[in-house]
């Protein structure tokens, strides 16, 4: 495991920013941490990077306790609110980064060139950072995060400062990194970003991890059966309700029932038919990830 957190908790006064979080990320995963603003995403990443001290619990990064700086050797990080020493040029900043990660001097130039190329800042690197636009600063941050070819990269809201074109470019860089086998941990409150690139997803809400798994699990476990029917017996209705299957009910004729397996559909229909229910329409559809997401984050 590249990342492992065990009951990781951060308390700010009475506010639980992260509550008992257990998760693990294996090599090669693109792990998306989704949740609304203030859910605790940035705090979690900062604890894993040793920036914020956990109130309780433990975390391992690259198999090393996060209190040990060596845990961060093979790691890149693009912070959310991204500020640099704006009295440096982009080039100087990357040079400094390269030194911090002990890239041998004769390989620094090549690494810097490659990173600049990847983020599309080639030719602008000698300018002072204070003259960079927000988007350029974000790209420079990305360049600094990928410069030393780390095994694992944390991206905290990598596209939130960008316009649509910039977002697309960042997504392309993410795809490139993914293809090269780099493990990514991406924080976002935007599902659309994650849907396309992530292999794994976790949902965090008010500091608690409410769901986590492979992206395919989320979509598959969430089929819905939409029924238009008359005369459904009260006993069956209350049974559905009890089991939490009844997701919607309009004018006593249109039902939405949550199921986890397609095989349930014929069972339900024959049972209703046997009970004398008149069925006008039955449609099956998988919920989109967005609906799952909205469900998970709503109170």
């Amino acid at each position, binding site marked *: 495991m590249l990342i492992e957190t065990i009951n990781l908790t951060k308390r700010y006064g009475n506010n639980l920013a992260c509550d008992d979080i257990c998760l693990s990320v294996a090599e090669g995963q693109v792990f998306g941490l989704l949740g609304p603003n203030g859910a605790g995403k940035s705090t979690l990443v*900062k604890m894993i990077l*040793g*920036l914020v*001290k956990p109130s309780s619990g433990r975390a391992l990064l690259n198999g090393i306790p996060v209190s040990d700086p060596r845990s961060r050797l093979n790691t890149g*990080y693009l912070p959310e609110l991204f*500020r*640099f020493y704006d009295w440096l040029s982009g080039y100087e900043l990357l040079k400094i980064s390269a*030194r911090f990660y002990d890239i041998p001097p004769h390989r620094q130039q090549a690494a810097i060139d490659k990173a600049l190329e990847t983020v599309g800042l080639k030719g602008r690197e000698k300018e002072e950072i204070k003259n960079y636009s927000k988007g350029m600063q974000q790209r420079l941050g990305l360049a600094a995060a990928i410069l030393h070819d780390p095994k694992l990269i944390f991206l905290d809201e990598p596209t939130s400062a960008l316009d649509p074109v910039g977002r697309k470019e960042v997504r392309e860089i993410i795809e490139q990194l993914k293809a090269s086998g780099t493990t990514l941990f991406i924080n976002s409150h935007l599902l659309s970003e994650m849907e396309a690139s992530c292999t794994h997803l976790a949902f965090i809400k008010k500091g608690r991890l409410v769901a986590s798994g492979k992206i395919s699990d989320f979509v598959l476990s969430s089929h819905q059966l939409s029924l238009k029917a008359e005369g459904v017996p009260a006993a069956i209705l209350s049974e559905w309700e009890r089991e939490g299957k009844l997701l919607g009910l309009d004018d006593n004729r249109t039902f939405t029932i949550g199921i986890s397996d397609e095989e349930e559909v014929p069972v339900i229909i024959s049972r209703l038919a046997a009970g004398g229910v008149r069925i006008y329409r039955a449609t099956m559809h998988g919920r989109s990830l967005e609906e799952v997401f909205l469900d998970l984050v709503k109170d």
Partner: protein
Amino acid sequence: MKNIVRLTFREIINKKILHIGIILTLIYLIFYGVGLHYLVKNAPAGGGMQALFMQEVGFELLTFGLFISSFLTGTLAIMLGVGSISHEVESGTVLFLASKPIKRSSIIMGKFGVYAFSTALHAGVLAGAVMALSIYFFRLSVSWAGVTLGVLIFMLIPVCLLAPVFLGSTLMSSMANGVSMFVLYSLAIIGGMMEQIGAIIHKTGLVNMGIISSLILPVDALFRLTVSKISDFMEIGIMSQLGPFGTVSVPSTAMLFYTLIYIMVLLVLTVYFFNNKDLS
């Protein structure tokens, strides 16, 4: 650590405060030199009187010049250092730094080393220039050992100020730290003056207050030690020691050790607090 040192040098060299400090220092030295030049030109002529005047007034002005210098170099150290840590935290650049595979203690030690070196260099050059001007214009007879020792002690003044400045910078905002440090520094200077006045008029209460303020921030004691080291080897009457910047109550050499321990203890505390700080 090497990388922090390099980065901090790059940072300091860019600071407007440093540029302003250097310009003010140069202006001050020019004024000081020109002032001495005219004073010597208008000195009473003739025999033993002149030699006495030269030694007395020369030493008095040297002490005065060093006092202003200590204030200049002290203020520069505070102004440069207040944001050394807090500004990184406030602006968010600390996330870049502290997420690197380096110990937090090396961030503090590397930064402190550079700030201490730069401000001590400023103090040394400034004190050296003031002494050179005085010795040149007033033809002061000094011992080079005393002068060297004096300059070295003087160079500790900004370092001694930087220690609480760094501690404050890990605990407070740049603003709060700046205000606290200037209050502390003013108290130390006033305490030092009270100690001298107390010694002249034999009021132990005043002397004790001065000693207490020296323990809280031993900069004034360092200044007095500097003056006493320079005058140790000079043939001057008690007269010249009575001026407002002279030294009647000389701090013991133990103050020097106290200062070194003071700096080390504050640095250890700074590292401790920074190690446990949430950088969010």
